[in-house]
């Protein structure tokens, strides 16, 4: 992202996008959106089960998951990219969780069928290649080991939760057994403490599990509300959690734990509500790193914008306008600093980004752009005669400073990691040839 070093630093370092810059009019009704971690691609999940990958450089679709067989056939519920952007997990109302290897996006690499629609699927859990899924009317989340050809599914619940009624009464686990937590609807693996899983239930509980390959332990539970959990997000730094529930409120907590990860504490920071229209929130997202901003889309036909709050003060700082309809899912690409969201009615996908104006002085390096006229004043040394010898010496000195042509920069100016090679989706030569020979 060397371009950021050469652009106006004040614009580059703005912390959230400002203007609607792009609209993807897709032929299919998009119902969820997800940027790859590098921001090179945008995956759109559609209501008929199609998942289309767009190349953000060309703004054109470059792949469709499962177009050689084995695609989803009902609405997509969630999409998750692996850290290196090579794999994608999708969950759908057709009861399947599918893993896609983008080296061969035409067919799923692994798939698991549940007995009812799947809400969400996210990377993580005790396995090298594994994920956590939440399923319709299921009390517990599932962990899936995707390494074997036929993936292995296991319920994520504490051994005590497994006990029968009688045993529970007799044992000292009374306090646990007392609670009816409801169905598990959302689950997030903690970004820093990888063995910690936080789930949200239909009765308004947070449950924190500690998962190792030997056992699952419920280490903490906390009631945040008396209603359904709709979305849960955790900041990249891991100390901030937000939960969107059907009581029309987004609650933002600061999450702390002791060193051994046995005790946790949720401290409520802010509650975001639409006090005038009392709208529900459709989707929520944090900004990068320590999550200084939170963006949300509102439910209802009167809502057409994305709302962006500063998380430290809880104040609304920006309304992202431009879409002429209710917005659903949201994703935030931190590398290119853009936010995307899909419209409910048209299924179009909107993108808001930073607009960096051209720097005309870059074309002529001897010129300088000035805001207003400046009276010319000769500088002290402006016309000093510099001896040719001294000038040469200066140039020679510059050529003695050590240069490093090999090592890549670790972070871009916005603090995103850039020094590893992200997966590049191979060009679909077959489709080029098919199109080219179509009329022959």
């Amino acid at each position, binding site marked *: 992202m060397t371009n950021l070093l050469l652009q106006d630093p004040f614009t580059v370092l703005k912390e959230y996008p400002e203007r609607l810059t792009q609209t993807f009019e897709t032929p299919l009704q998009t119902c969820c959106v997800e940027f790859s971690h590098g921001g090179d691609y945008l995956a759109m999940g559609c209501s008929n089960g199609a998942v289309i990958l767009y190349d953000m450089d060309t703004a054109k679709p470059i792949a469709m998951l499962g177009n050689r*067989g084995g*695609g989803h*056939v*009902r609405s997509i519920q969630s999409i998750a990219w692996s850290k290196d952007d090579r794999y994608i997990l999708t969950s759908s109302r*057709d*009861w399947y969780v599918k893993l896609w290897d983008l080296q061969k996006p035409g067919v799923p690499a692994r798939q698991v069928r549940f007995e009812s629609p799947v809400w969400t699927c996210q990377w993580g859990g005790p396995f090298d290649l594994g994920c956590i899924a939440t399923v*319709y009317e299921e009390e517990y989340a599932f962990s899936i080991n995707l390494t074997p050809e036929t993936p292995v599914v296991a319920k994520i619940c504490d051994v005590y939760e497994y006990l029968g009624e009688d045993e529970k009464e007799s044992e000292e686990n009374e306090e646990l057994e007392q609670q009816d937590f409801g169905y598990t609807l959302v689950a997030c693996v903690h970004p820093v403490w990888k063995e910690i899983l936080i789930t949200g239930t239909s009765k308004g509980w947070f449950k924190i599990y500690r998962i190792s390959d030997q056992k699952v332990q419920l280490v903490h539970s906390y009631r945040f509300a008396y209603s359904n959990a709709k979305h849960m997000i955790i900041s990249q730094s891991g100390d901030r959690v937000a939960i969107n529930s059907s009581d029309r409120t987004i609650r933002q907590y600061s999450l702390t734990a002791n060193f051994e990860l046995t005790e946790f504490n949720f401290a409520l920071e802010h509650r975001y509500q639409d006090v005038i229209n009392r709208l529900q929130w459709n989707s929520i997202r944090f900004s990068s790193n320590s999550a200084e901003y939170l963006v949300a889309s509102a439910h209802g036909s009167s809502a057409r914008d994305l709302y962006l709050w500063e998380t430290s003060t809880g104040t609304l700082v920006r309304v992202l306008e431009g879409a002429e309809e209710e917005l659903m899912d949201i994703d935030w690409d931190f590398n290119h600093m853009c936010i995307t969201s899909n419209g409910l009615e048209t299924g179009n996908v909107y993108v808001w980004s930073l607009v960096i104006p051209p720097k005309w002085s870059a074309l002529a390096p001897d010129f300088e752009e000035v805001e207003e006229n400046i009276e010319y004043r000769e500088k002290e040394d402006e016309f000093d005669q510099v001896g040719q010898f001294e000038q040469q010496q200066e140039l020679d000195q510059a050529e003695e400073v050590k240069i490093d042509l090999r090592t890549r920069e670790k972070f871009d100016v916005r603090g995103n990691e850039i020094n590893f090679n992200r997966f590049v989706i191979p060009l679909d030569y077959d489709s080029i040839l098919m199109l080219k*020979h179509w009329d022959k």
Partner: protein
Amino acid sequence: MVSLPDWCPAYNPQKKDAETGEEVFCICKKPDSGELMVGCDGCDDWFHFSCLKMPTKYNELVFSFYCPYCQAGVTGPGATDGNLPKTLWRRKCRVSDCFKPVAENSKYCSEGHAISYLRGLVDRVEVPGHEATPVLREMLREPDFDHFKGVGQNGLPTPSEQLAPGLFSNDAQLQELESQLQKVRGGAKRRVETQLEQLAQYSKWVHAVNELLFGDGNQEHAESTSGSRSKASRAQKRKKAVKKKAICGYSASLVVPCPAEQFVSEFKELEDEPTELRGVCCKLRCTRHLDWAGTQENGLQFQLESLESSEERLQLLVKIREDQLKLQFYKKLTQIDTTSIKIPLKNES
């Protein structure tokens, strides 16, 4: 409006030299000096080949000539009706230095020239290390004239195994494509079809069970939907129609556990309405498994369609790859550094 060429002076109606009284012609307005001239079909004036920048060797090729003034509509028919005439030419013989017009139904002026043209063409074919004629014969091995005329229309002709041993069979890429194609054509499609059949059979059984359990209410619905065209929509409609009173019927295995009658009697024996019997979900209003049959059918059908399009795609890729190999083969034949390879030809033996 067609304008006069730059080299052509404006029209001058003068027909006789004012001083000598001699008759003058052409755009140059000079008397006839015996130089080759052509008569205009529009204004009946005569024109020098050289003045009109026409090579004299085109003499025999003129079909109907119109001078620049007639073509521009200054004189001749174009001046009155506005339809500007154009000079028409006869088709020239294909032999490059022959400027005779072609004979009827031919591309040559004479049979002699036809033979010499084709001979020239054959002579131009260079196959280093070989005599060109047998190689050409090899390429055009079809004796049939109609086939000969079609050469090149369906891409390059495939060289014989003798001329290009292992051209296709030694190419890894082509072999890979062929084996993929075999896989699609072989088991994959049949497997999906079997699954579809199994699903249909099981759905039928669930329907029968529901019929027996809540028969009367559902009879009319079944009739009203029997006319719908597509299978998928019928399945969906049926689900909707029986939604009021029917067991869910979902089972993970999709295997009919026992005859419908037996299942129904077992079901009725149980005191409370069971939620599950023999692995079959018996809930009456089951939101969990909602639309299980439709979803699975769509999934399988989607797979079938994908396999069909895969077949089409692979066939095309095979053809493109074959064409590419042929092209490379013929291209290589004309390359100088392949002279060391001796290609056995059947005519040599």
